[in-house]
C-alpha cells in the first residue's frame, strides 16, 4: 500500500512538472517583457536610467532571461521552490503577498462548500436511492435536472434577486467582501461580518453542488443496492439498516469518492465565476483582474496553484481509495 501511494506521488509530481512546463511556455509566448515581471516598485520611479539598466541586467542574470526557454523554466521553478513567484504587474508587490489572502479565502470557502455539500447530499442521495420512485425521490431528481441546467453565476443572480432585492429585510449584502468599516479584526463581530458577506457566494456554491451531487450519489447507491452481496445480506436476515448502511453504502463509497475528487477539482473553477459574480475577494477575482492587467506572474502562479490543488485532490483520492477498498490495499 505504501508502495502504491509512493508510486502515485511520484507520478503526480512528474505530471505537475509537465503541466507547469506547458503553462510556462504558454506565457513566455505572450508579448510581455519578462524582465518587468521581476522589477520591484522602486524601479517605476526615482531611478536613474543607468540604475534601472543595472537592475534589469541583474534580473536577467539571476533569472537567466537571456538563456534558452527551457533553462529559464528551471530558473522559474527554482524561484517557486524558494517562494519567489515574481512581482505582480498590478500592485508591484510580490505575487505571494498579492495572492495570499485571496487564496486563503478561496480555499476556506471551497472546503466549507465541500463539507456542506457532502453533509447534505450523502444522506439525501442515499435516502432517494432507498425510496426510489417515491415522491421525495422524484422531486429531488427534477430539482437536480433543473439545477444542473442553471449555470452557477445565474444561480448567484437568482439568489441575489430572491434574498436581497425582493424581500424587505436586508440581511445579506449583495456584493463585496466586508463592510466598509469592518469591526476590529479577530472579534466575534468581525467573523460574523465576514460570514455575512460569504453567505451568498457559499449558498450559490452549495446549491450548484447539490444539483450535481445528489444524482450521482443516488445512482451509485442504487448500483450498490442491486449488488449480489446486498441480496445475500438481506437473505441472511440482516436488519435493513445494516444492509443499507454497512453493506450497500460501503460499496457505494468508491464511486462517491471518485465523484468527490472530480467535484473538488471542479469547484475551484466554479468558484472563480461565483466570486466574480459577487465581487468576492478570492482567487477567481484575482485571476480575472490579473487577466485584465495581463499580470503574467500572478497568472502563472495561479495556474500552478490550480494544478497543485487538482493533483493533490487526485492524491487524496488515491489514498482514500486504498482506505475504503480493501481490494486495492491487498493487491
Amino acid at each position: 500500500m505504501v508502495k502504491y501511494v509512493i508510486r502515485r506521488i511520484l507520478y503526480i509530481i512528474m505530471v505537475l512538472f509537465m503541466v507547469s512546463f506547458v503553462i510556462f511556455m504558454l506565457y513566455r509566448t505572450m508579448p510581455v517583457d519578462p524582465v518587468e515581471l521581476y522589477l520591484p516598485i522602486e524601479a517605476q520611479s526615482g531611478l536613474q536610467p543607468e540604475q534601472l539598466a543595472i537592475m534589469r541586467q541583474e534580473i536577467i542574470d539571476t533569472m537567466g532571461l537571456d538563456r534558452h526557454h527551457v533553462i529559464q523554466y528551471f530558473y522559474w521553478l527554482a524561484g517557486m521552490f524558494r517562494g519567489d513567484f515574481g512581482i505582480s504587474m498590478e500592485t508591484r508587490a510580490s505575487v505571494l503577498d498579492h495572492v495570499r489572502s485571496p487564496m486563503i479565502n478561496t480555499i476556506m470557502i471551497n472546503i466549507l462548500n465541500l463539507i456542506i455539500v457532502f453533509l447534505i447530499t450523502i444522506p439525501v442521495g442515499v435516502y432517494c436511492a432507498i425510496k426510489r420512485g417515491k415522491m421525495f425521490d422524484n422531486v429531488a431528481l427534477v430539482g437536480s435536472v433543473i439545477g444542473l441546467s442553471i449555470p452557477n453565476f445565474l444561480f448567484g443572480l437568482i439568489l441575489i434577486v430572491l434574498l436581497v432585492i425582493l424581500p424587505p429585510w436586508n440581511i445579506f449584502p449583495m456584493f463585496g467582501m466586508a463592510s466598509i468599516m469592518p469591526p476590529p479584526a479577530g472579534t466575534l463581530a468581525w467573523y460574523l461580518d465576514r460570514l455575512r458577506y460569504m453567505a451568498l457566494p457559499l449558498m450559490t456554491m452549495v446549491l450548484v453542488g447539490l444539483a450535481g451531487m445528489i444524482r450521482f450519489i443516488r445512482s451509485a447507491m442504487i448500483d450498490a443496492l442491486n449488488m449480489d452481496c446486498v441480496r445475500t445480506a438481506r437473505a441472511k436476515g440482516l436488519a435493513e439498516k445494516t444492509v443499507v448502511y454497512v453493506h450497500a453504502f460501503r460499496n457505494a463509497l468508491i464511486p462517491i469518492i471518485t465523484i468527490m475528487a472530480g467535484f473538488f477539482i471542479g469547484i475551484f473553477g466554479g468558484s472563480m465565476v461565483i466570486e466574480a459574480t459577487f465581487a468576492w475577494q478570492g482567487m477567481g477575482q484575482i485571476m480575472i483582474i490579473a487577466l485584465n492587467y495581463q499580470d503574467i506572474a500572478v497568472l502563472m502562479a495561479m495556474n500552478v496553484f490550480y494544478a497543485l490543488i487538482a493533483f493533490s485532490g487526485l492524491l487524496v483520492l488515491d489514498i482514500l481509495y486504498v482506505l475504503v477498498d480493501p481490494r486495492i490495499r491487498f493487491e
Partner: protein
Amino acid sequence: MDDKKEIKAKKKSFFGMLMSMLFGERLGGKMTLMEEEQVQSPFKTIVREFFRRKLTIVGLIGFFSMLLASTIIPFFFPLNVSDTDIGQFNQPPSMNMMRIPRAIRGDIVMMSAGPGYGVGVTSDNVVHVWGTVNTVAAPLLNPPQPGRPIKHVSAGEYHALVVTEDGHVYVWGNESPAFEIANVPPEIQGRVVTATAGMRISVAITDDGQLHAWGGITLDRRDTAATGRVPRGAVPVQVEANSLTFGVLTDDGHVHVLIRTPRGIRDVPEEIQGRIIDLSMSDDNVIALLDDNTVVVWGNPINVDLYDIPAEIQGRVVNVNAGRGHFTVLLDNGSVVAWGRNEHGRTNVPNLSNVVSLEVAGDHNYAILADGSIQTWGLRGFPFGTDAQGRCVFTRLWHAGRYSLLIGMVAVMVQGTIGLLFGGLSGFYGGKVDMFLMRFAEVVSSLPFLPIALILNFRFRHVFGPIGGMMFLMAILGVLSWPGLMRLVRAQILQARGSEYVLAAQALGVKQLKLIFRHIMPNVASTAIVLLTLALATSMLTETAMSFIGFGVSEPTPTWGNMLNGANNSIVLRQQWWRWVFPAISLVTVAISINLIGDGLREATDPRAQGR
C-alpha cells in the same frame, strides 16, 4: 450480373449497418407484418422507450423550438453589430413608441418626436406625451401644462420643451444637475420665437434674432453655441439639433453648424449656401432643401451609401427630414418618399397622398395628414427592450442563441471525435497505446477546466480574430473535455472485444479497422450519444460562464453569456430586468431541454438505468 448486384446490395456500409441495426430490417421493407410484430429491433425499443416519457417529449419540444427560433428569427431580424443608439439605451420592453393615445388622435395640432416617445399638443393646448422612455428620461412622461396657447414643441434626447404664443419656454425631462436643462436664461422668457431641444442642451431664437443656449455637458459647449458663428446681420430662423451639434438656418439661406463636430456634418457644401430653405439633421447626416425644391445631403463619410438621392424627387420636394440612417421627404403632391438603410422598417412608407407635414426622429416616422390623423411607420418599440448600448435585446437574443448553440455543438463534435478516436485506439490496441492514452486522459481531466480554458482563450483569441477566436473557443471546450467519453468508449470496447461475435469476426479474418468501425463502434454509439447529449448542455453552460465573466466570446458578437455580462449589478438586476431575464430564460430552457433529452436517451438505451 444479377448475382453481383445482389451481393452488392447485401454488402452494407458502416452507416447502413448502423441504420439497419437501429431501425431493424424495417427499412428494407422485406418483413411482413407478422414478422415485424414478433421481432423488434433494438432501435425500435429505444425509440418506443424514448417517446414514452413525457418529460423527454417536453425536452424535445423545448430544444427544437429554441433551435428553430434561433435559426429562423435571425434571418428576419438581421443583426447590425455596430448599430448602437445612444438615445434608446436601457429601454424597457414595449411596442407603443408611436402609439398615440386614442383620445387625442385626430386632434393633434403640432407634434415632435424624440427617441422612443412623442410630444403632441391638442387643439385645446394640452401637452400630451406618449411612448416609452428609459429610467433616465422617465420625467419626460409628465409634461408641464402651460395653460396658454402653444406655438412650438420640440423633443430632444432626454428632455423636451414647448414654446407658448407669449414667448415663454417650458422645459421638462431628465434634470440631472450637471446638465441644467431647466435652467432657461430668465431674460429670454417672453421673447422666444422658437426653440429646439437637443441632447441635454437647448437653443432658443428670440424676437430680436439672437440665439440663446442653455444646458449642455460643458460650459465650453454652451458658450460655443451661445455666441455661435452666425454672422452679424443674419437672422436665425430655424434651429436643428442632433445629439452632437446644432445647425442654424438663417434668413439669408445659409446654414451654420454651431459646434465643432468631427464627422462631416459641418462640411456644408459651399455652392448651396444662400439657397437653403429647410434643414434637418440626424446624428450622422444632414439634409437640406433648396429654393428650387431640390435636396442636398451630406454628413459622415461612412454613410456614403445614403447619399444617392432618388432622381425622380428632385424639384418636387417641399419638406425634408433626416432620421437614423435614412431620409424621409415630403413631395409637392402630398406623398412621402424615404430612402436609406431599411432597419426597423423605417423606410417602409405607407401609400399616402395627402400628407401635410412629416416628423422624423431616429427610427420613428410620423406623417400628419390633411384630415388631422397621423400615420406612423418605423420603429414601434423593442419587444424585449434594449441593452446599455441601445441594441435590441430581442434581435440579439436569437443571434446569441445561434452562436451559443453553435459553440456548444461544435465543442461537442470536437469532444466526440477525440473521445471516440482515443477511446477506440486505447480500447482496441491496449498495451502501451492504452497506457499512454489513459495517462494522457488522466492529465487532461485533472487540469482545472475553467482557469485553463480562460487562459488559453485569453492568450489566443486576439490572434485568430473574432470568428477565429470563437472557433478557438469551441476547440478549447472540446479539447479539454474529452477524457470522460474516451474512458467510456474504452470500457465499452474492452467489453465488446471479449464477446463472441468479435472473436468470430476476427476468426473470419476481418481487418482490424473494419472490425472497429463495423462491429464494435455501433455498440458504443448509443452510450456515446447519451454522453454527448449531456455534454452539449455542459459545453454551452461553460461558454456562458466564460462569456459572463468577459473572457469567452467577446463583444459585439452576442452570446447568451455575454448578454448576461454586466447583469451582476444592482441597478440592472433591480430596474432593467429585461436585460438579464430573457437571456437567462432562453439559456435555462435550452439546458433543461437538453438534459431531459439526455436523460430520456439514457433510460431508453440502457435498460439497467431505468429510474436512475
